[in-house]
């Protein structure tokens, strides 16, 4: 589960430290104020409040408290700036990813100076551990926000505007991320996963995910591919290496290697995939994918084909 209190990157750690300091100092001040209030209720002051002495004591006390408040706020302002600077300080990134937020899923494009090594996938960000990752974010429709609390702070995705966030995952693991800006009906079901792997495992994943499409081996999968290409699917989805090249919905190349369906809504199992295709509206009401009416045999073949896309 995602948590900002369990940081696994220098960036998230800086944010978590700032948060704990603010929590601690705020808690101490709150305790102090509560104590002072309780004491003042129990104790009656010896000095007459309207006397000259009383006024002077009150004036001094007020000055001290206002001054102390200002000092605390200014110190935190400085600390906050320092954390902000440390988040933006960086060396050359090892991996660059362009993230586009859609209603309600994440499009990921792994950038590379070699065009054939560029790769488009969805909802599952694989990164090598111990290396700086640069994530450029933008939105296709409305404002979203990219947030993997264990790894980095929030960054809003504004349509027509490119912004950038950096992080370095230190420990291998699967970290959940979530859209953090209300973006419509299925905002809650717009999750993604960051899979931090040791560099060798990452390189293997990258190679497997850029591997060319293997034509279906058996006749059921071949039927499934025919169903895929002759029904509505290729109008919105891509399977690299086939005639399906549309970019309206998430890319389905190597769908079977992903952990979840529909941006973290469902586990990627055969049964879930079937019910998703037949009636997405029952599982994620409002999603832009329409129900696809297919005959049972066609559906079975289609899912068999999709399961071969490792």
């Amino acid at each position, binding site marked *: 589960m995602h948590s900002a209190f369990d940081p696994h990157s220098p960036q998230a750690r800086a944010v978590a430290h700032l948060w704990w300091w603010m929590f601690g100092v705020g808690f101490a001040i709150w305790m102090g104020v509560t104590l002072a209030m309780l004491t003042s209720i129990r104790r009656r002051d010896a000095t007459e409040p309207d006397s000259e002495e009383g006024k002077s004591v009150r004036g001094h006390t007020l000055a001290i408290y206002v001054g102390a408040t200002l000092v605390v706020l200014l110190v935190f302002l400085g600390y906050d700036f320092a954390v902000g600077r440390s988040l933006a300080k960086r060396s050359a990134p090892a991996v660059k990813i362009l993230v586009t937020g859609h209603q309600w899923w994440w499009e990921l494009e792994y950038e590379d100076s070699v065009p054939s090594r560029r790769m488009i996938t969805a909802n599952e960000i694989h990164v090598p551990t111990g290396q700086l990752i640069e994530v450029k974010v933008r939105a296709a429709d409305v404002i979203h926000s990219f947030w993997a609390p264990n790894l980095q702070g929030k960054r809003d995705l504004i349509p027509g505007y490119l912004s950038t966030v950096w992080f370095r995952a230190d420990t291998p693991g699967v970290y959940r991320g979530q859209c953090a800006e209300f973006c419509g*009906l299925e905002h809650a079901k717009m999750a993604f996963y960051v899979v931090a792997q040791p560099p060798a495992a990452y390189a293997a994943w990258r190679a497997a995910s850029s591997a060319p499409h293997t034509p279906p081996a058996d006749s059921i999968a071949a039927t499934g591919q025919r169903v895929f290409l*002759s*029904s*509505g699917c290729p*109008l919105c989805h891509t399977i690299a290496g086939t005639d399906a090249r549309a970019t309206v919905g998430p890319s389905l190349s190597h769908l079977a290697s992903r952990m979840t369906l529909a941006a973290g809504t469902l586990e990627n199992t055969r049964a879930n995939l079937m019910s998703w295709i037949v*009636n997405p*509206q029952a599982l994620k009401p409002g999603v832009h994918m*329409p129900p*696809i*009416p297919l005959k049972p045999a066609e559906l079975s073949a289609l899912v068999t084909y999709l399961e071969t896309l490792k």
Partner: protein
Amino acid sequence: MNARAWLASALIVLTACEREARKLNEPPPRPPQQFVNSVRLQPGPTEMNDSSAGPFDSNAAGTGEGQQLFAQMNCSGCHANGGGGMGPALMDDEWIYGSRPDQIFASIAEGRPNGMPTWKYRLTTTQIWQLVSYVRSLSGLTPKGARPNRDDHMMTKPAPSQTPNAKPRQTRKP
């Protein structure tokens, strides 16, 4: 203002709370009754006083989906943003193959000569009905409150919700 007037105005404001219910998990609307797989491909007479409505005509969410589909399925490749280009204009009051929802459904589902492709094997019935409502909203044939308030492209004309209500005019020859 006294309390009663406040209460009355609050009640008036409350009436705006629910413009429409979004029905997301309903069985898809059926194709039109007289929908047959092959129709005569001649332009027909326009019915000037037809009041039939598509399933999404008074549904803003469905019309909005139609607007997205219009861009995503590249309708604008030929029809531009309603103004026409290679294909006929959709925002005017001339209708070659009829302005009734079932006629537009047939035009999209079946395709038409001179380049309009067949969409019935590609889009679902729901999606075609949503496109029908968006196409009708462009020229002001659907209820004003359900038409899109904003264009997703450059605003070269007022949004459909600002378009005056219109009546289809006699067809021209294709």
